[in-house]
């Protein structure tokens, strides 16, 4: 079912006129007739979970927002999408800006935010113009500004460009950066719901989360909650990349199997050049990498589905996470050591440098992985890596430390023999790939 991307194919849908002709802003009109509490209630009923990575129930988050008398509140949209492999928010903002702005208006109304912000990553240099145009169009038609459509609610939306730091996607770092300070994550508590932007109560939500609010209001929270399986409600955008015939952004139902997502022609269309699947990171670079045999089926032999619970089945040991939906596929020609090194370099580069385990540990892991990859590794390096990631995880201010530790942990856990092979065959490893070993795609081995 398509809730978000159903109109994406329409010519000119980016512009207000076309958008309105196709039923645009009806959800906002409906929302403005409700009370803010009713909207929060609908979102709660829908069971929508945050699409930014952590999957925290949005309605619950909204109900935590402190409402002290006389203090303004703010909605901040996290459009800093910088997680390697994730590019779904970009698609929404670039091609369906009005869907997103609708969500911003409804959410601002529900939360009582008269001034809302969109914090967008600096590298999306052309998108703020698209958003600002959509905001101007909405304002010209009375959907923003003073006393929106006679409801008595005032709202302005501002777009703020980031300076190009992954860490500014972390909600408190984002808030600091929005305030014009250095993007260092804050130490929690206090949480943004109590003290966020300008020390006022703030809700930070992902672009996709906010864009989904419109369809929820249109169809009703209960109807939305009936879609999906378990605690994964509605639909989800996946950005698929890597060794796939048809990489791109797809809207999926939560009962879709991973196998179908990779191989069916409706979605990614299989792996190019007849290669076999080796491993996959299903939720953006921060979630654990899993080998093919654990990706398609869990340890109990059940088919894995593309949803929060099914992918996480098995915990960190044999499972992974849906995360932000950045689906990265590695075929049999890819080297897990090199891949892990690349991720370690990323986290080393993006650490804000506040807390010592992350600042020093990420760099250390990168250097060791570089040694292993370039034929200078030692046997004890693998255990050392394990020890370093173990001491970073959970001991840092913000989850970037965990995000840096998990990929390394998972790579060692599942692909230890590949690391060992690199160390034992330093010269061969420079020219040849380790291949598939025992963790190959079980479906294709059978054939």
């Amino acid at each position, binding site marked *: 079912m398509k809730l978000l991307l159903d109109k994406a194919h329409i010519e000119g849908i980016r512009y207000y006129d076309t958008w309105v002709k196709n039923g645009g802003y009806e959800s906002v009109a409906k929302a403005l007739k409700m009370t803010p509490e009713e909207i929060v209630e609908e979102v709660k009923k829908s069971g929508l979970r945050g699409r930014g990575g952590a999957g925290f129930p949005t309605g619950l988050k909204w109900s935590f927002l402190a409402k002290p008398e006389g203090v303004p509140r703010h909605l901040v949209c996290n459009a800093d999408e910088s997680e390697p492999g994730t590019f779904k928010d970009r698609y929404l903002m670039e091609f369906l800006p009005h869907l997103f702005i609708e969500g911003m208006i409804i959410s601002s109304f529900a939360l009582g935010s008269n001034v809302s912000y969109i914090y967008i990553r600096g590298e999306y240099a052309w998108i703020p113009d698209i958003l600002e145009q959509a905001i101007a169009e909405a304002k010209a038609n009375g959907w923003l500004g003073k006393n929106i459509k006679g409801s008595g609610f005032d709202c302005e939306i501002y777009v703020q460009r980031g300076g190009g*730091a992954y*860490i500014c996607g972390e909600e408190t770092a984002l808030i600091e950066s929005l305030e014009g300070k*250095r993007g260092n994550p804050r*130490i929690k508590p206090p949480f943004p719901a109590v003290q966020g932007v300008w020390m006022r109560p703030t809700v930070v939500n992902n672009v996709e989360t906010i864009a989904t609010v419109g369809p929820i209001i249109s169809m009703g929270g209960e109807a939305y909650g009936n879609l999906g399986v378990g605690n994964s409600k509605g639909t989800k955008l996946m950005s698929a990349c890597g060794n796939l015939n048809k990489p791109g952004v797809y809207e999926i139902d939560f009962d879709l199997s991973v196998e179908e997502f990779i191989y069916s022609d409706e979605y990614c269309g299989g792996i190019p050049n007849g290669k076999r699947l080796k491993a996959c990171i299903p939720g953006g670079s921060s979630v654990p990498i899993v080998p093919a045999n654990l990706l398609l089926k869990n340890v109990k032999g059940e088919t894995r589905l593309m949803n929060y619970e099914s992918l996480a089945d098995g915990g960190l040991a044999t499972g992974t996470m849906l995360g932000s939906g950045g689906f990265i596929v590695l075929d049999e020609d890819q080297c897990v050591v090199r891949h892990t090194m690349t991720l370690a370099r990323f986290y*080393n*580069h*993006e*650490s*804000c*440098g*506040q*807390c*010592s*385990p992350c*600042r*020093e*540990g*990420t*760099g*250390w892991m990168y*250097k060791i992985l570089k040694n292993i990859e370039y034929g200078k590794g030692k046997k004890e390096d693998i255990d*050392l890596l394990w020890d370093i990631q173990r*001491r970073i995880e*959970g*001991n*840092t*201010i913000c989850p970037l430390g965990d995000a840096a530790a998990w990929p390394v942990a998972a790579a060692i856990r599942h692909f230890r023999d590949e690391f060992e092979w690199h160390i034992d065959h330093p010269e061969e490893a420079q020219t040849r790939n380790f291949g598939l070993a025992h963790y190959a795609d079980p479906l294709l081995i059978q054939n």
Partner: protein
Amino acid sequence: MSDNIKVTIDNITVEVPNGTTILEAARMVGGDVAPITMCYYSKLKGSGGKCRTCLVEVSKGSEKDPRPMPKLVASCRTGVMDGMEVKSMTSERVKDAREGVTEFLLLNHPLDCPVCDQAGECHLQDLSYEQGKQGTRTDFTRRTFAPEDLGPYIQLHMNRCIMCFRCVYTAEQLTEQREHGVLDRGDHARISTCISKALEHDFIGNVIDVCPVGALTDKTFRFKNRVWFTKPVDAHRNCTNPKCCGEVRLWMRGKEVFRVTARKDEWGEVATASNGETGWICNECRFEKKDTADWIIEGPSRIQRTSVIAQGHYAGTVGTAGKSEKLIDKVIGKEPIYTLDIHKVSEVDNPNVHLSQIAGPAHSTDFKHDIKDR
């Protein structure tokens, strides 16, 4: 008192006012129960939470919600709850995590203690001694930074910095305009004035005192002597700067004043002055008044248990005293490293005994002797 709540740290229960952090509560218990802090500074607003050396395990959240906290928490930024139970030195997890943090902090540290002015009063040295391991697991080239000139008074050795942000908060909170900050990010984040500028504000010298390592040192003292070869003497003067308390510590050898610093308390922080405010001192007192005639001498300073100056200033192994006895009894199965309060066993604090009469490396007659011999 209804405001007070009970918290148990390493099996020792203390009553503290509501809103106290775990760290402050642990400091009330004292001894090794109080974690070493590399970034927290009770006198600086917003400090703490960064270095992670003060991690503790909360084995019971509170009386109301007894669930343990899943992660170790930074005690300096976590408030206590009524009935909370905390493990600091009695937890293996904490020990392991702190050992890890120590290793991380030393990873890119130049370890140039032999030429570092901070040696002897460096918190990183103390931390490595108490919580580090022997040996190293890295043979990578250490990260280095280009030298930066901060003007005539303050020397910045960025290679030694541990990014505690204390100096940034000090500049923010003590001076009218912030003069320096952090540039760049990750392991290349550095303290800088951006476009090489001198730090000139008349209170900026206090960054030297808050810096836990030798990253910010006093240029007027640089390479002139070692901390443990000078003797600390408390003194004061009638400083004309209204914000300056004028109460200082002179570091002397013979009649010569080598260095002037603020007075430090038990936790290595600038102590509260007699006017009840934090004893920050102005640049004039710190850098310009290097003559005993400028000062009214009060007498030998109290020396911290971790100070190298304390080493050798007390004879033999002395039995446990007072508070420490209680610690050993209570901290089951663990041998605290420092169980004795050296003030109870050493003569250094006895105003009737001149420091130079106490046996040990740190008194002036030794050095006079040395020089004569040469």
